[in-house]
């Protein structure tokens, strides 16, 4: 493992998850992904969002305006999957959650009803100014076509896909629609006089250009940084792939050499499995990153050193401050003890962090021991487990009975919230 510079920094900045950002999901959208994104952000069914947008459109087109604004300002988000899942998705091994035909039909039906009611309102004369309604409609469709194109460029990551006649013609169609809308409104409004004509022409032209080019320019700038990030990421992946390639080949060679020794074979296979799994299913944290990462790294070391599988289950996570790091080290000692003395073929580690305390349970079903008979000078248990945790305001409970295995329960309070509480280990 490479040393992680971040771990050296004192009290590294809190992760940037202080508030959730809304996104437009690129993989599950019908038009712009606005409705889906908003629905996901607020945790409501997407149907409700679409209904609200459509109803709002009946009132001076508020819904459409809101939709366009959100389209412009919500960033498009690509699903960020681990390599294993990404490839499984690509090969159709998982069920995708892309928009199904039902959802499309439902939305089209909803849209049709919406447009119907809108036209009804128009015909009663209470809607948007009749002279503007037609051109607005044409213009909006144009803008939608252009923006969707621009989105697709971002989605497919490659800026050079902005070339090609299909792209050009769709761009032209969008721009044409906007222009038609502008002309239409200009001739319609001809009676207002030359001054108004000129002003509106200018406004429409500037607005049109802004609408068409604005997001594009923003997107191009965004694309540049995105591409840079992407390049770094793909380099990283290539590095990891190369590393895995080597390690897998090496493991296979070692397996063949040690075919007679089942313990070695099992350990080698186990280690290889862990490495592959981490890479495939996104567990690429460094040991210095967090409590759980540190715990997993310790478990891996114990596994390798003592040839006993250590299963780590973690619920929640915490930054690795001094207390939590001590807890992780104590847990490591407990794992080593279990691996050395219990004589088992599996150790279970369960870690839970609830914001107030971090707890670890290290359990084996091995020989166990009688706590009363344990010598006072057994450094392993007293010094490195119990004292270490207690020095950091935590508690350590060891339960063991000969023949029934051992469970070490460790707990330290998490300081950032409240320094006074010292939570008892359960039981």
């Amino acid at each position, binding site marked *: 493992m490479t040393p992680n510079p971040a771990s050296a920094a004192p009290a590294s900045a809190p992760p940037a998850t202080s508030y959730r950002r809304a996104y437009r999901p690129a993989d599950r959208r019908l038009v712009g992904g606005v409705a889906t994104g908003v629905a996901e952000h607020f945790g409501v069914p997407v149907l409700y969002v679409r209904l609200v947008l459509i109803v709002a459109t009946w009132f001076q087109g508020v819904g459409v305006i809101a939709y366009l604004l959100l389209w412009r300002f919500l960033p498009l988000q690509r699903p*960020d*999957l*681990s390599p294993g899942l990404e490839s499984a998705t690509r090969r159709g*091994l998982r069920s995708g959650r892309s928009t199904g035909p039902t959802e499309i039909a439902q939305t089209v039906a909803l849209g049709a009803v919406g447009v119907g009611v809108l036209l009804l309102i128009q015909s009663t004369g209470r809607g948007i100014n009749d002279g503007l309604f037609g051109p607005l409609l044409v213009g909006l469709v144009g803008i939608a076509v252009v923006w969707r194109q621009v989105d697709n460029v971002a989605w497919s990551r490659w800026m050079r896909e902005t070339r090609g006649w299909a792209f050009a013609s769709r761009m032209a169609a969008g721009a044409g629609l906007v222009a038609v809308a502008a002309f239409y409104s200009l001739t319609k409004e001809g009676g207002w006089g030359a001054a108004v004509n000129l002003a509106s022409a200018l406004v429409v032209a500037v607005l049109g250009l802004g609408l068409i080019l604005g997001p594009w320019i923003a997107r191009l700038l965004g694309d540049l940084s995105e591409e840079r990030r992407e390049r770094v990421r793909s380099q990283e992946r290539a590095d990891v792939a190369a590393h895995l390639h080597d390690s897998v080949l090496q493991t296979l060679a070692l397996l063949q050499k040690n075919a007679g020794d089942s313990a070695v074979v099992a350990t080698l296979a186990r280690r290889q499995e862990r490495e592959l799994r981490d890479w495939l*299913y996104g567990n690429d944290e460094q040991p210095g990153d967090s409590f759980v990462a540190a715990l997993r790294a310790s478990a891996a070391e114990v596994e390798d050193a003592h040839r006993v599988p250590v299963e780590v*289950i973690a619920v*929640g996570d915490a930054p690795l401050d001094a207390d939590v790091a001590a807890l992780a080290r104590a847990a490591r000692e407990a794992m080593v003890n279990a691996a050395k003395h219990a004589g088992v073929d599996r150790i*279970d580690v*369960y870690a839970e962090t609830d914001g107030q305390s971090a707890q670890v349970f290290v359990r084996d079903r091995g020989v166990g021991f009688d706590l009363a008979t344990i010598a006072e000078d057994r450094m392993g248990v007293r010094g490195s487990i119990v004292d270490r945790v207690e020095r950091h305001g935590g508690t350590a409970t060891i339960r063991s009975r000969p023949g029934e295995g051992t469970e070490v329960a460790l707990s330290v309070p998490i300081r950032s919230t409240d320094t006074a509480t010292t939570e008892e280990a359960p039981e």
Partner: protein
Amino acid sequence: MTTLRVAIIDDHAMFRTGVRAEIDGPVYIVGEAEDVDSAVAVIVETKPDVVLLDVHMPGGGGLEVIRRLHLRHPETKFLALSVSDAAEDVIGIIRAGARGYVTKNISGPELLDAIDRVAAGDAVFSPRLAGFVLDAFAGTIEIAQVDEDLDRLTEREREVMRLIARGYAYKEVAKELFISIKTVETHVSSVLRKLQLSSRHELTRWANDRRLI
């Protein structure tokens, strides 16, 4: 007691052979399949008691198999078996109707035990699944507007889940909490039911967020 009829659905032939070698005898293997379409055909034709179902498979994965069969053949019980640790997929397949989830490195006797349990209508939670469940239901405490019991675990259920996550077998859980194994099974089944029926958007959102952490 009649021998249980089991189907093995997995796209890796080597794995199917391995599982067959380990459990054939105590149970009767009625069929194998390697993708969604053949799986549906095999299950409809042979009507196994328990289907060992891989999570990732050509044609849409195990989820798709359950989707296609659950309404027509509700008596078929599914036990998900996977190397994938993607919480999203595991929770997804449980929510679709699988009665348990175990990892592929499970030992033969343990797998047989799990098959028996699933066939009897109980739920099989591995430590990993228990961890996922605790994680998935963890956010509920702070949300005050929980109006349905389905949306949260009772204190007892949480205790049972924590013990399972700590590596306790059902009977050890029972001993620890001074309750009967039957009661443990009831708690676990009830957690499974909540997982499947809860309409909580947090559950799906949790799955979404999880991969972004």
